[in-house]
C-alpha cells in the first residue's frame, strides 16, 4: 500500500508510538475521570445535606390550612355569626387554556358580573398560574347544577367547597357584630402573613374586627408532595391541624335588641341598654341598619354606592359615632355637680321667670315655658327641666369646674367599649375651644352648656355609659359586649375577666339621692309623665329635647311646637331606681320632644327586660360576672 514515492513508513515504530500514546491518553482519561469523581464526591458527600434539603423543599409544599372562625352568640346562645358551607368557582389559568374564552363561555352558563371579572383579575396578579383563583363565591344550587352539566367544556374550572361567614339576624346586628370581608392589601399590611396564610377573610368592623385575634384561631398546615408543575400528588402524614377560633358570647340579648330596633319604627336614631352593675351592653341599636351578609363575599359596587349615598346613612354606626346635643338629659349631671362641688344644697331654690340674664349682659337665655316655672328647688328643676336653675348653676361653676366634673362621667372621650371606631364626642372647655377654634371662652357658652347645648356633643354610648354610672350610684364600669368565650367545642364556656369597678365618682351618697329624687319625679310628675305607668319598678329618667336650630318665630310658644325636624330628642332612664339593673339611653334624630318620642322607645326596652325577668332566665351562664380581683384589675 505504501507508495515508494512517499517517505518510508516504519510500521514497527508507529506501533510502539501508538502504544505510548494510548497509554498517555489512557492516563489523561483516568486523571479526568478522577477529577469528575472528586466533583461527584464534593456534591454527594460535602454538599449532601444542603442538596437533600433543597430536594425536600422541591418536593414538599407546605399548604396552610385556614382555621374555622369562632362563632358569635348572644348572651342566650342565639347564633349571631356562623360559618356555613358554600361553594365557590375557581379557575386555574394554567389548565384553563384560553382564559378569555373560558370566562366568556362561563358567563353563558352562570351569571358572572363585571365586578367578578375585575376582582378575578386583581387576584390573579398575586398568584402563580397553577394556583386556583376564585371567580365566584357562594354559588347557588341552580348555578352548581348548571355548571356541572357543562363542566366538560371547562378544564381548569372547579367548584370548590368552603366555609363562608353568615349573619342569620342580618341588619339587626350589623352595627354590633359587624362583618368580615376579604383580606385586602391594607389588611395584608396589618396582619401577620403566616397566621393568615390560609385565610381569605378578616374582621372588618364591629366585634368581628375588635376580637379578630380571638375569633381567627391558629393556622395549621399540611404537607403535600408536588411535582415540578406544583400539582399536588398526595398529602404527607406530617402536618398540623388548624386551631379553630374562640366562640364568643356577647352580653347582648337578641330579643331585647329586636324589641329596641322595632321600637324605632324606622326612625333614624340609636339606643343603648347597659347593665349598670357591670357595664354589660344588653342592647345597642343604630337605625337604620344594613344587611352585612353581602359584604362578606364582596358587595356589588352599585349596592355599596347606594348604601353610601342613602340620606339616612345606614352605614353610620350611630351608637358609636352619632353626635347628638345632649340637651336636658345633662341636667341631672349638672345638678349633681352643683351638690358635689358644694355650690348648691338640694333645698336651694331659683326663681324662673322665663328669661335668664348674665349680670351686666342683655342677652336673654330662655326657659322652655313662657313666663317661667316660678321658684324651684333641685328636684323640681330636674322634674320640670327648668333651664334657669341650670343656667345660673353652670355660671356659678365656671366652665373649668363644669367640664372637669362632667368628664368624670366619661363625656368628651371614648368610653372604651370593645368596638373600633368610637367617637369621643365633644365636652366643651376652654382648652377645647382654643384648640378647635383658637378663640377665648365666653360666659354665655358656659350658660348654655348648663342645659347640654352649645358645643356639647355626646354619642349614644357615652350617654348610656353616663346614665349607667349614675344608676350605679357613681360607680363606673367600662361598657363592653364580650361576656364569655369558649376556646374549643369541648371546652367550657367561661366568663371573660371584667375590669375592676372604679371608685365612685360621687363623694356624698346623699347627693345622689337628691338627683335620684329628681329623676323619679321626671317620670312620675315632670316632663316624662306617664313613662312609669304600669311598670312594676320605679323608673328614674330624664327627657332631652335639643334644638337643632333656634326659635325664629315667636308663635312657637313652647319647645314642643314647630316642625318635628326641629329637634333631636333624647331620653335616659334606669330602673329599679334604688337598685338599677338596666340603664337606657335613646336618641332620635328628629322628634317632637324627648318625652313624646324617645321615652316610649326606652319604656319598650325596659318592658322587654325586667318585668318578665328576662334578665334572670336569659342568663346562659347562670352566675353573674365574678367579683373582680387584683389580677384582673391589672389585666385591664
Amino acid at each position: 500500500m505504501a507508495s515508494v514515492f512517499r517517505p518510508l513508513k516504519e510500521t514497527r515504530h508507529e506501533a510502539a508510538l501508538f502504544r505510548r500514546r494510548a497509554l498517555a491518553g489512557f492516563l489523561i482519561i483516568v486523571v479526568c475521570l478522577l477529577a469528575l469523581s472528586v466533583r461527584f464526591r464534593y456534591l454527594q458527600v460535602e454538599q449532601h445535606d444542603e442538596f437533600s434539603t433543597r430536594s425536600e423543599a422541591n418536593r414538599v409544599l407546605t399548604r396552610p390550612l385556614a382555621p374555622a372562625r369562632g362563632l358569635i352568640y348572644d348572651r342566650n346562645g342565639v347564633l349571631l355569626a356562623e360559618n356555613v358551607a358554600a361553594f365557590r368557582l375557581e379557575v386555574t389559568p394554567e389548565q384553563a387554556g384560553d382564559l378569555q374564552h373560558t370566562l366568556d363561555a362561563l358567563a353563558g352558563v352562570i351569571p358572572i358580573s363585571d365586578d367578578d371579572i375585575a376582582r378575578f383579575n386583581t387576584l390573579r396578579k398575586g398568584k402563580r398560574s397553577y394556583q386556583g383563583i376564585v371567580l365566584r363565591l357562594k354559588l347557588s344550587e341552580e348555578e352548581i347544577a348548571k355548571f356541572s352539566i357543562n363542566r366538560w367544556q371547562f378544564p381548569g374550572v372547579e367548584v370548590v367547597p368552603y366555609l363562608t361567614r353568615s349573619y342569620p339576624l342580618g341588619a339587626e346586628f350589623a352595627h354590633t357584630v359587624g362583618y368580615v370581608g376579604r383580606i385586602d392589601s391594607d389588611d395584608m399590611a396589618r396582619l401577620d402573613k403566616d397566621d393568615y396564610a390560609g385565610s381569605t377573610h378578616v374582621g372588618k368592623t364591629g366585634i368581628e374586627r375588635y376580637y379578630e385575634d380571638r375569633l381567627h384561631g391558629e393556622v395549621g398546615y399540611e404537607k403535600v408532595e408536588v411535582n415540578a408543575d406544583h400539582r399536588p400528588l398526595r398529602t404527607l402524614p406530617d402536618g398540623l391541624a388548624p386551631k379553630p377560633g374562640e366562640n364568643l358570647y356577647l352580653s347582648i340579648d337578641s330579643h331585647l335588641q329586636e324589641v329596641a330596633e322595632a321600637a324605632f319604627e324606622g326612625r333614624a336614631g340609636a339606643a343603648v341598654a347597659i347593665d349598670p352593675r357591670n357595664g354589660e351592653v344588653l342592647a345597642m341599636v343604630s337605625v337604620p341598619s344594613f344587611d352585612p351578609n353581602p359584604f362578606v363575599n364582596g358587595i356589588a359596587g352599585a349596592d355599596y354606592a347606594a348604601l353610601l349615598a342613602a340620606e339616612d346613612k345606614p352605614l353610620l354606626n350611630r351608637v358609636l359615632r352619632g353626635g347628638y346635643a345632649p340637651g336636658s338629659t345633662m341636667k341631672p349631671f349638672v345638678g349633681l355637680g352643683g351638690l358635689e362641688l358644694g355650690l348648691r344644697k338640694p333645698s336651694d331654690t331659683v326663681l324662673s321667670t322665663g328669661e335668664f340674664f348674665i349680670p351686666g349682659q342683655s342677652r336673654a337665655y330662655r326657659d322652655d315655658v313662657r313666663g317661667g316655672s316660678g321658684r324651684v328647688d333641685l328636684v323640681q328643676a330636674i322634674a320640670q327641666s327648668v333651664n334657669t336653675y341650670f343656667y345660673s348653676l353652670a355660671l356659678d361653676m365656671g366652665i373649668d369646674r363644669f367640664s372637669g366634673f362632667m368628664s368624670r362621667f366619661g363625656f368628651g372621650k371614648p368610653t372604651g367599649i370593645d368596638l373600633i371606631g368610637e367617637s369621643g364626642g365633644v365636652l366643651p372647655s376652654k382648652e377645647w375651644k382654643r384648640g378647635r377654634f383658637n378663640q377665648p371662652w365666653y360666659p354665655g357658652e358656659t350658660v348654655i352648656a348648663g342645659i347640654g347645648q352649645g358645643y356639647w356633643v355626646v354619642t349614644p354610648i357615652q350617654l348610656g355609659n353616663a346614665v349607667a354610672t349614675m344608676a350605679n350610684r357613681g360607680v363606673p364600669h367600662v361598657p363592653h359586649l364580650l361576656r364569655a368565650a369558649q376556646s374549643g367545642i369541648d371546652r367550657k364556656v367561661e366568663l371573660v375577666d371584667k375590669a375592676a369597678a372604679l371608685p365612685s365618682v360621687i363623694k356624698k351618697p346623699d347627693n345622689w339621692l337628691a338627683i335620684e329624687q329628681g329623676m323619679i319625679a321626671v317620670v312620675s310628675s315632670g316632663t316624662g309623665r306617664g313613662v312609669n305607668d304600669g311598670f312594676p319598678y320605679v323608673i328614674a329618667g330624664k327627657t332631652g329635647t335639643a334644638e337643632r336650630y333656634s326659635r325664629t318665630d315667636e308663635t312657637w310658644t313652647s319647645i314642643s311646637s314647630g316642625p318635628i325636624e326641629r329637634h333631636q330628642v333624647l331620653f335616659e332612664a334606669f330602673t329599679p331606681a334604688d337598685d338599677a339593673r338596666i340603664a337606657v339611653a335613646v336618641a332620635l334624630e328628629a322628634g317632637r320632644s324627648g318625652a313624646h318620642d324617645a321615652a316610649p322607645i326606652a319604656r319598650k326596652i325596659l318592658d322587654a327586660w325586667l318585668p318578665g325577668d328576662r334578665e334572670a332566665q336569659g342568663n346562659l351562664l347562670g352566675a353573674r360576672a365574678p367579683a373582680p380581683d387584683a389580677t384582673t384589675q391589672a389585666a385591664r
Partner: protein
Amino acid sequence: MIEEVVAQLRYRAGSLWRKPRVDLPLLGALALLMGVGLMTLYSASDLDRGQVISQALRFALGLVLMLLIARIPPLSLRNWTPWLYAGSVLLLLAVAALGEGRGAHRWLDLRVLRFQPSEMLKLTMPMMVAWYLNGRPLPPSWLTLGVVGVLIAIPAALVAEQPDLGTALLIAASGAFGVFLSGLAWWRIGLLLGAFAAAVPVGWHFLHDYQRNRVLTLLNPEADPLGNGWHIIQSKIAVGSGGVWGRGWHHGTQSRLEFLPEHTTDFIFSVFAEEWGLVGVLLLLALYVFIIARCLWIAAEAKDTYARLLAGAISMSLFVYVMVNGGMITGMLPVVGVPLPLVSYGGTSAVSLLAGFGVLMSIHAHRKAVGN
C-alpha cells in the same frame, strides 16, 4: 438461484452464530452497561415499560449491527472510508439545505426512516482521519496536520451550524484523538492547544445566544433559577441528594416528580447518581474505564495503523461522552446535549455507539489476519 441465496444467508447466519468474532470481555462489559442503562431508564421513565422495551429493541438492533460490522474486515472498511466520509458530509449538506428538526436542523427525513447524518460522522470521522494518516509517515508533519484539520473542520462546522454543539464537539474530538494517537509531537500539541485557547474569544462571537447563555449559566446558575439555570440546579440537587449510598432504585424524587428535565435522555446520569449515590457513580465510572481500557488494548493489538488509530479514536471518544455528560450534570461543564453512552434513552446514539464497537470487534477479530 433463490435456493442458493437462501443457502448463502443460512451459512452466513450460521457462522455469525458459531464464530461471532467478538471480544467477550468487551461484550460482557457492554452488556452490563446496557443492563444498567435499561434499569436506570425504567426508574427514570417512572416505570414505563414501553420506553424500556423500545430502548431494548434499539440495543438489539445495535447489537445485530455490531455483529455484522464485526464480520467486515478492517481492510474493506479502510477501502470504503473515503466514500463513507464523503457520503456523510454530503448528507450533512443535504440536512443544512432541507433538513427538519425541533428548533435545530439535525434530522433528515427519508420518509422510510428519519435519522441524523451527524451520528454517522461519529464513526466516519475517525475512519477518515485514520485512513488519511495511515498513508502518511508518522508522526505527522504540519502539512499532514493541516489536511487533517480541514477534514475535521468541515463536518464539525456543519454540525455546529445546525446547531448541535455537543455532537460537533464529539466529532471534532474523535478526529483529534486520531491525530493525538498518531504520535503528534507533544510540543505541537501544546502549540495547537495554545492557539485553540486564543481562538476561544473569537469563537464566542459565532455561538448562538442560547449557547452563550448555557456557558454563562454554568458560571452562575442561580442567576436564572427558572430559566437556563434550572437544568443545572435541579441536576445538582439530584446528584447531591443522592449522598454516598443513594436513595435507592426508583426512590429519587427529582426525576419522579419531574423536577429534573430530560431525565431519561441527557440527564439520566443525575437520576442514576441520585438513586445509587457516590458508590454507584464510582462503579459506573469504573465500568466505563474498563471498557475504554479494553478498547485501547484492542487498538494496541491491531496490526495496521489504520485499525490502530480508528480503534484508539473510537475508544477515547467514549471518554468524551462520559466526561462531557458527567461534567454537565455536576455543573462543571456547560449544558451540551451529549448522552451518557448506552444509558441515555435514544435510538440513534445507541445504534451508532454499538456500530462503533462493531468496528472494534472487527479489528479485534482480524488482528492477526491483516498487516500493513
